[in-house]
């Protein structure tokens, strides 16, 4: 998939003719060893990524029960686009992604800046921030499902009840279900972002802060004029990764709500899952997978194009 648009350049030789590359020179040059080391990677990618992708492409044009297979052209795509649930799923997923960006993007950054300021307890703080990531996702989601219990006995309702709020319906409420899932998902994943930002923060030269301080910049202006511009490369790529990641949210709604109530937390991936494993309709499932991949690809390309000025520093 990764393509370079330049030919491999031969070393520039003066005085002698360019020597032709033959299999013999390739082997002598260590080509065989390179290939040997490359092979496991190549094989595992082919077997577990590229082959399934190719198969999906084929399956999306077929109707199959895995015994008899029939080519149906674009019918699967038509059936996906005609499904009234598709609109619901796309809307829910978009709302999820936007709220996840709103909460999930600034929180780890601010936390990383805060942790970076700590001296003695920085290690401890990073460990604490990263801890939720270590908990297996299914366990974490099930744990939060009980936290969100809608009666008085739920953890959140108990705590909020102490200050006279609630009880809230959380996952049982069509309006609260997506924000509630976003909070859980953010909690579960922000540790990784904190660690990455922290690493990036460590590479910012301290002289920049010193000279800003001499120029009279306060904490906020130093963050705005030094930290953010220095992190922009990593911020841009993290934003893109988060966009792609959150658009494919599955585990949380699958375990917490099954898409309910009334499909208010049905996401695109959950719909794909239902096509494949509830209806046994792999043609439709792969067609929607391809449409999702295409949409994310276009979105990513547009994003990279729109931010090309900022990213090429």
């Amino acid at each position: 998939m990764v393509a370079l648009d330049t030919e491999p350049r031969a070393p520039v030789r003066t005085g002698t003719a360019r020597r032709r590359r033959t299999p013999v020179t390739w082997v002598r040059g260590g080509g065989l060893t390179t290939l040997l080391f490359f092979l496991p990677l190549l094989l595992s990618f082919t077997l577990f990524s590229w082959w399934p992708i190719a198969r999906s492409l084929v399956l999306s044009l077929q109707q199959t029960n895995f015994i008899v297979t029939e080519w149906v052209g674009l019918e699967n795509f038509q059936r996906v686009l005609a499904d009234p649930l598709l609109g619901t799923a796309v809307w829910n997923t978009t709302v999820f992604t936007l709220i996840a960006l709103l909460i999930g993007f600034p929180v780890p950054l601010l936390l990383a800046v805060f942790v970076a300021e700590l001296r003695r307890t920085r290690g401890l703080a990073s460990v604490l921030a990263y801890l939720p990531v270590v908990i297996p996702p299914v366990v974490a989601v099930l744990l939060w499902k009980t936290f969100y219990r809608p009666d008085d006995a739920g953890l959140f309702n108990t705590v909020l009840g102490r200050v006279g709020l609630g009880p809230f319906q959380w996952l049982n409420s069509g309006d609260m279900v997506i924000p509630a899932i976003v909070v859980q998902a953010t909690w579960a994943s922000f540790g990784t972002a904190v660690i990455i930002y922290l690493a990036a923060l460590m590479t910012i030269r301290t002289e920049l802060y010193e000279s800003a301080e001499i120029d009279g910049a306060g904490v906020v202006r130093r963050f705005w004029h030094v930290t953010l511009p220095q992190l922009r490369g990593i911020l841009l790529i993290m934003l893109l990764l988060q966009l792609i990641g959150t658009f494919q949210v599955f585990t949380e709604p699958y375990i917490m709500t099954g898409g309910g109530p009334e499909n208010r937390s049905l996401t695109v991936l959950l719909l794909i899952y239902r096509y494949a494993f509830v209806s046994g309709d792999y043609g439709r499932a792969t067609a929607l997978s391809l449409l999702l991949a295409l949409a994310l690809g276009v979105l990513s390309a547009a994003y990279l194009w729109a931010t090309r000025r900022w990213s090429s520093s």
Partner: protein
Amino acid sequence: MTRRYVRLSTTLAITLTTALSVTACGDDSEPSSGGGPADPDAPVTISVSNMPTTEFPEQREAFERRLDEFAADHENITVEAQEIEWEADTFQAMLAGGTMPTVMQVPFTEIGALISRGQVADVTDHLGETDALDRLSPTVMEVVTDGEDRVWGVPIAAYTMGLLYNRSLFEQAGLDPDAPPQTWDDVRAAAQAIDAGTDAQGFATMTLDNTGGWILTTMSYAFGSTLESDDGGTATVDNPATESVLDFYRSLRWDDDAMGSNFLLNYDDAVNAFASGQVGMLVQGADNYSNMVVNRGMPAEDFGVAPLPQADDGIGTLGGGTIAVVNPRATPEEIAAALEWIDFYHFQKYTDETVAVANAEASAADGLAIGAPELPVVDAELYAQYLDWIAAEVNVPRENFELYLSTVEEVPLIPEPAVKAQELYATLDTVVQAVLTREDADIAQLLGDAQSTHQAAIDAG
């Protein structure tokens, strides 16, 4: 420019790789026709699923003993046993990868879809080669028979949907556990009493993963209507009986507040809540004794099961159970051998006292329930004889299921919707969720929408 191009390609590659999570690798070889004549003496090898795991050593040993006995009786048939069990998530992959065992056990709820997708073998022409069919109960056989009288599997265990109730909660609420509710008004009154007199909620119904629609369908039968025409061509979701069921839910939920507070319940949530005494009544498979008592630790004396109450127009109840199906790629010889095995392993206990007693002893030694309520898959006479043989091994309080056991054959068994049952259940899940989570839910509107959604699904073919 190059760098951006590389980055873009990488991104696209990542996107493609992650987004295409649902794929499968397949072997698209043509199926063999299941209908041809089989040579009864040709050497043949079949594989069978559901071998007891090492967690149940006595049963496993009994299974292996039966394997040896089968081998001695059928010299030309080699049986390879596997521990594989049915899972909706893995079945298609097994089929695609060619690793589906020759004989596989699947739940009643799946058979309709498997038949319509052509993912099980037609066993009709081979049934005559064993005695199995003659002994099977016709009600149960309907589940595996299509409109053209072709048979697609052999039911090996069955149950009817009933009303599960917690006997201890009944007592605490001042109700008589030996006189379970027999009308839906009784159910509502009992739910109110349990809610008022105990810490538990009176009634619960599942709402997720198609179970909400499954139970709504069952309840609709009890209130007087199916949800599809008999041929499956027309959706009849919008009918007065289903509306009454939803109204019944609405009263229990919003007028009586007797259904607790969590309305996103899947199967495990609901049975765990029932087994742990948090729920007074639940519409579920009447075969749940083992699941509740043996698997989930409910006190045996608390488990009660009553027949599903029938409204005046009630037409019956839904059935459930396990069906032995045959791999659609099996050759005629393999199908014949598969049926020999099914007959030998699952039905000999009804005709051979030694086998019946040995099986029951092994199960009892592993701590499993013997004599729990079920719907006989063989005729009443054979079943009574079987119960007589294993009487000494019965380890469940059958007197607590008196009403269910004495009427199990009287409540008509209504099959699942013929076309796209799982899709229908998924559509109905949201209807049930709406009624339970929104006080202002418009039942007529919800049913109207579900009707058009399901009709569209049927028409889409």
